């Protein structure tokens, strides 16, 4: 069964179905994790300007590709524009800075990190121009809700977003938002896909039973749920063994009933409080 099917974005670009994020990692940690990730099979890496380590990602990726005999086009890099860059407004210069940091001449997916009030519509239009220039292969946003999309679409868009990233886990299935994106063929990436394995995830009877039935861990079960849900999990691990374990999810399948059971855990629980990162959210 080991099939790793890529997600096809609405512009034809191919996105790996699982992403390793690099937020807040220093060089030694990132080098270890990315190197190990590539060996295991990870091909997508996520960063953001506001993580303060785009330049480290660039260095690490360059070294790892060379060491493992891979090419730039073999991997998928996501980065994001932060709120302070939106305030500056010089979005074309910001992508140039990101490209320099990442030591690449293109980014696979470029996201607006937050719908920064009063700025995000203008930011989107500038991102559209950059997309049309070819320096980014796909554009999208993170942390948008339906009302943000509606506000943006009311203004008119030239490019329909290719992908949106938001917090999504069995405790927060965001059904309305997922449906909204699917109706518009906007791909979904899920951050905090395991809800950080908080106690109520670990102690869930449903998750434990399903995990045991498939001889997998709870984390593997949830990640498989994401894969079948076509919500691309974006997760962080500082443990190479954990990375390997979390990639070992392509050799089993959850039944429809099991998928529904996992989804039934939804309680609209978000780990991250959006307004704390984006005042006025």
């Amino acid at each position, binding site marked *: 069964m080991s099939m790793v099917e890529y997600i096809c974005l609405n512009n034809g670009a191919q996105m790996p179905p699982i992403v390793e994020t690099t937020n807040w990692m220093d060089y030694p940690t990132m080098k270890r994790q990315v190197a190990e990730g590539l060996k295991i099979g990870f091909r997508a890496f996520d960063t953001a300007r506001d993580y303060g380590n785009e330049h480290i990602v660039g260095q690490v990726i360059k070294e790892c590709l060379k060491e493992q005999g891979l090419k730039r086009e073999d991997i998928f890099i996501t980065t994001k524009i932060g709120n302070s860059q939106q305030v500056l407004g010089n979005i074309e210069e910001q992508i140039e800075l990101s490209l320099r940091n990442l030591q690449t001449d293109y980014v696979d997916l470029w996201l607006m990190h937050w719908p920064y009030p009063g700025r995000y519509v203008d930011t989107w239009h500038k991102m559209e121009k950059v997309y049309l220039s070819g320096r980014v292969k796909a554009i999208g946003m993170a942390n948008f809700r339906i009302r943000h999309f509606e506000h943006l679409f009311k203004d008119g868009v030239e490019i329909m977003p290719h992908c949106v990233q938001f917090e999504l886990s069995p405790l927060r299935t965001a059904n309305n938002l997922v449906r909204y994106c699917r109706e518009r063929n906007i791909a979904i990436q899920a951050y905090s896909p395991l809800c950080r394995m908080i106690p109520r995830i670990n102690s869930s009877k449903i998750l434990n039973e399903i995990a045991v039935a498939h001889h997998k861990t709870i984390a593997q079960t949830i990640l498989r749920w994401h894969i079948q849900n076509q919500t691309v999990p974006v997760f962080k691990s500082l443990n190479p063994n954990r990375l390997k374990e979390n990639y070992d999810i392509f050799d089993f399948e959850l039944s429809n009933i099991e998928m529904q059971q996992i989804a039934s855990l939804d309680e609209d629980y978000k*780990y991250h*409080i959006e307004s*704390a990162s984006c005042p006025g959210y």
Partner: protein
Amino acid sequence: MNNHLYNTEWYKSLFLDIDHETYPDNTWYRNHDERNFDLVNLGSSGGKWAFDYAGLNIKAMNWAQQPQTLVEDYNLLRCFHSILRKGGYVIITIMPFTGVNKQTGLYDALKYLKLDTQGEPIEPHLYHEAKRYADNPLLFGRPAYHALKQYLLKQELKTDRNCNACLDYNPMTEEQLEKDADMWMKGWKQQFSISDFEAPLTAQNQLGRKYRVRIMRELIDFCAERGYKPIYVIPPVTLFLSKKFTPRFRDIYIYDYLKEVERDIPLLDYSNKEDLMGSELYFNSFFLNKKGARLFTKQVLTDIGVIKS
């Protein structure tokens, strides 16, 4: 010397929530698992002392401070509202002078500086000045030197801002309550340059009114856009103070203001509720004590329908 000053009780007392336990900022939420709160209340002194959710079957936070302006209320909401569940309640505490504006100063800007608000000021007026003083507290001059001396001599006294909230009785006699009520009324006259509470608003207060109407509308629309339920709540005061709020005064300063805001949200008005006016429920003529706050909070939550009586 600044480094020593940062450790003094005086310096720490300049700021709110230095232990990140009141407002759900980036530090709070990484240390707490609770989410989807049912309700928050905003407000100034009246709100701070009026709401006590302990022991009630509700997830709620009291974001009011003594003092706190409507702009600060709104900015706190902008920064921390995501702690609320879908359809969560936002209580907007209405005090006698919510509808007129007052000038804020350095200390008002200072007190919010330790909250993690991603660089967005809760109190924008004198924000940069406040940051300068926070980084270099020696700029305060005499209070700083005094605090430093106390610290170095290990003679510091720790003050508890909330000691009055622990009281479940009123320490004032009737005579003291009468004087206290007079003191508040005189203080407000001075603060807002009012010579006659029954006269129409002064030109300056009319300008302040326009500003407060705009902020209130933005605050309410902010709630509505996100699916929250804003509610005006007018807390009670003792009979000693309440009798000084004539019907004309209430119209000019409270009800006309709410009418001018022109937003159709529920109003829970406890300003005439006699069973909440007994002085034993307050620690002065104005603010509810622990007993009073618990009683009042339970009443409000029952009236809203979030708890059963």
